[in-house]
């Protein structure tokens, strides 16, 4: 101590008095950094109310609440997040997890109000000054995700290999693949409402994650007694609304369902599903048609204690699932697995029985307590263009049925298919396989009114058909089938500009100048199916109500104008397996209610 330097040196700080102060005079209104985590913003039109923000919030600051002007609909829960700033810690996990990218934070950080309740609001709906602020926290890009956006690729046979035969080409997920895929689900449950059967999708996906496949099977059978079938060929409306589809690929819900069903051996079903000791209440139900609707009705009625007898026109069960869907998509042994389980519960099927000729509907009405008719759409529809009456013009449904029955089907080297739905793709790909087997090459073309983007067929069907060397040339309206001496030369088409008018009614518009000619020696029409109601006698029909489109009118529980007759499936709701299953389940409840009241 005592060094003079040590006494003088601190006084150098006086140098500061001649400097400008560094303090900011008025800090209010100082703009925050562009990444600042301020108050929430939400694009309510993009948001679908999946609730991931609520799930990830560690402070329970977010509630999902119904809001005015937004209704629940397919793919949108109708709920929107409401933030409680008494709890929010501005960590922005909600932003990073947001499945649609609608939720962001603004760069606003000052907000004064005397009313504490104002600090609870719905971002985007309750208008705030910072709604238009460009800056603020957004999910970092790229390669920054809280879940995988990419679907686990389903292993499948190469197009060249699968095009040679009818063996199933989708090989199914392994355990590891299924668990990875199941891991992507955010458990919002938006899929459940889009599924016609309202299956517990998040729950069975969770069962896969927990590797509890028996629980998974139980969840499946709550609403769907045909999981092997649906796991392969369901139209998966769930996947089209899947919340993961907004930024990435939707979850492979269908393949996951198949995984659960595949992994459970059929001999253990009864034990897993605990279907022993069912009541027999002595009441008898007749079911016409062993398709999805009929099988589903029988299954759920059987669980409730009814004796069910199914009358099937064809030699085997499955309806359109067996006779409409090609084997490479849905192998017959998988249909048998689902059907045999239903039969093992005591459901009876009488094959090769034609209602109307072998036994009348009226007789069934007398012999049974109630009748369910799920007779399906098995008749082909014609384009009725000139030349369509030629004997080398076929209906897709007829050909598919004949292939399934193992019969020889007509086949030529150059085929044109008219139609753009899944059935059209089925017949295209089936005939392509047959061509491959018979001629060693594929020469088949499918055309339809709808342009590529609105083709009714599933996207992967079109892609796979092309992989298998079939040509798909959409957007053409058939004009005339050119024939010469009863032999087909080809199909004349004109460009189709639009299929539906402003009222969304079917009213195609064509550009007559833009023409094309598809050379062919055989033509298959696949533009929709019709129902065969010939089993209804005229007298019977008078007592039924029909809609102006010719469909039988039924109530919510599929009860027709004649109280003991319930009708469901394709003839009510159009061709779709999962709708049929849902109809069947509801009809079973309807029949139960009807008979319990009686």
């Amino acid at each position, binding site marked *: 101590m005592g060094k003079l330097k040590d006494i003088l040196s601190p006084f150098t700080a006086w140098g500061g008095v001649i400097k400008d102060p560094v303090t900011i005079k008025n800090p209010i209104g100082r703009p925050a950094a562009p990444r600042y985590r301020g108050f929430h913003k939400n694009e309510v039109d993009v948001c679908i*109310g*999946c*609730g991931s923000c*609520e799930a990830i919030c560690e402070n329970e600051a*977010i*509630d*999902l*609440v*119904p809001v005015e002007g937004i*209704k*629940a*609909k397919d793919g949108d*829960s*109708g*709920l929107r997040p409401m933030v*409680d700033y*008494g709890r929010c810690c501005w960590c922005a996990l909600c932003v990073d997890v947001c499945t649609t990218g609608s939720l962001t934070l603004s760069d606003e950080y000052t907000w004064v109000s005397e009313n504490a309740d104002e600090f*609870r609001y719905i971002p985007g709906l309750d208008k705030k000054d910072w709604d238009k602020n460009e800056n603020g926290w957004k999910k970092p890009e790229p390669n920054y995700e809280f879940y995988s956006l990419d679907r686990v690729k389903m292993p499948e046979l190469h197009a060249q290999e699968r095009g040679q035969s009818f063996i199933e080409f989708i090989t199914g997920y392994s355990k590891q693949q299924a668990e990875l895929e199941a891991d992507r689900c955010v458990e*919002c*449950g*938006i899929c*459940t*409402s889009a599924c016609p059967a*309202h299956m*517990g999708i*998040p729950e069975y996906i969770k069962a896969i994650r927990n590797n509890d496949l028996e629980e998974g099977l139980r969840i499946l*059978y*709550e*609403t769907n007694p045909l999981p092997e079938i649906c796991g392969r060929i369901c139209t998966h409306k769930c996947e089209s609304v899947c919340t993961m589809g907004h930024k990435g690929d939707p979850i492979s819900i269908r393949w996951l369902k198949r995984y659960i069903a595949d992994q459970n051996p059929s001999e253990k079903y009864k034990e897993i599903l605990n*279907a022993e*000791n*069912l*009541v027999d*209440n002595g009441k008898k139900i007749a079911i016409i048609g062993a398709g999805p609707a009929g099988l589903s009705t029988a299954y*759920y009625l059987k*669980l*409730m*204690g009814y004796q069910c007898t199914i009358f099937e026109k064809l030699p085997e069960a499955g309806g359109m699932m067996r006779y409409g869907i090609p084997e490479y998509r849905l192998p017959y042994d998988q249909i048998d697995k689902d059907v045999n389980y239903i039969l093992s519960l005591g459901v009876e099927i009488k094959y090769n029985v034609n209602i109307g000729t072998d036994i009348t509907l009226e007789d069934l009405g007398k012999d049974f307590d109630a009748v369910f008719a799920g007779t399906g759409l098995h008749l082909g529809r014609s384009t009725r263009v000139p030349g369509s009456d030629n004997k080398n013009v076929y209906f897709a449904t007829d050909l598919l049925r004949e292939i399934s029955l193992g019969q020889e089907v007509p086949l030529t080297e150059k085929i044109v298919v008219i139609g753009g739905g899944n059935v059209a793709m089925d017949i295209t790909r089936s005939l392509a396989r047959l061509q491959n087997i018979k001629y060693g090459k594929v020469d088949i073309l499918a055309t339809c009114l709808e342009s590529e983007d609105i083709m009714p067929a599933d996207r992967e069907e079109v892609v796979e058909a092309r992989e298998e060397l079939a040509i798909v040339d959409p957007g053409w309206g058939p004009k005339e089938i050119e024939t010469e001496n009863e032999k087909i030369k080809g199909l004349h088409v004109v460009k189709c500009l639009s299929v539906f008018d402003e009222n969304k009614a079917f009213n195609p518009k064509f550009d007559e100048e833009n023409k094309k000619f598809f050379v062919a020696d055989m033509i298959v029409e696949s533009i929709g199916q019709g129902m065969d109601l010939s089993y209804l006698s005229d007298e019977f029909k008078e007592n039924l109500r029909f809609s102006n489109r010719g469909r039988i009118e039924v109530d*919510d529980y599929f009860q027709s104008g004649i109280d003991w007759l319930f009708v469901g499936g394709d003839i009510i709701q159009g061709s779709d397996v999962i709708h049929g299953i*849902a109809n069947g*389940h*509801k009809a079973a*409840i309807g029949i*139960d209610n009807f008979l319990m009241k009686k």
Partner: protein
Amino acid sequence: MKNLIERLHIKYSLTDIVNQRDNFVYLTIRKENAIDLVTYLKDYEGFSHFVLLSCVDWIEDGKFQLSYFLNQPNKKFDIAIRTMIDRENAEMQSSHHLWKHIETYQRELREMYGINFPKNPRIEENFILEGWDEIPPMRREFDTKRYSEKTFFPREGRKTYDPATYMKDKLYPNAPITAKVNKKDE
């Protein structure tokens, strides 16, 4: 160090050895020998830096796991000694005489888990909590959420909706979502 672990294994009949990293080993030992081992490592093997004394509640096994983390500063090696003690009337031999700061750790464990360390000075003194009359709060069965709901005032009028349930109520209230099963009375 591998040599040391082998020696310890023979000397103290360790029940488990886990190599977490190249320079980090977990040793599991019976309760009676734990403090012996800690003392041995400190006095003879140069584990002079005591890092942490912690407790894990394995409520389903009825056990508390005590973990003593020791560090050998020269060889830059860590050993964590784990031992299981009963949850009922939890008690462990005190090791406050080895390092001064263990006293605080033991006070904390006494308060937060209810583990007694007889002979630890000031063991009865409050560490963090004053006037606490609930069960020791770090035990698994202590429910923080219920405690906070009981103690504080949640904001009025908050209600949240589950998307799937809400959509069911709005879009398909009558659709069956479970199978109805009628079984014979057993």
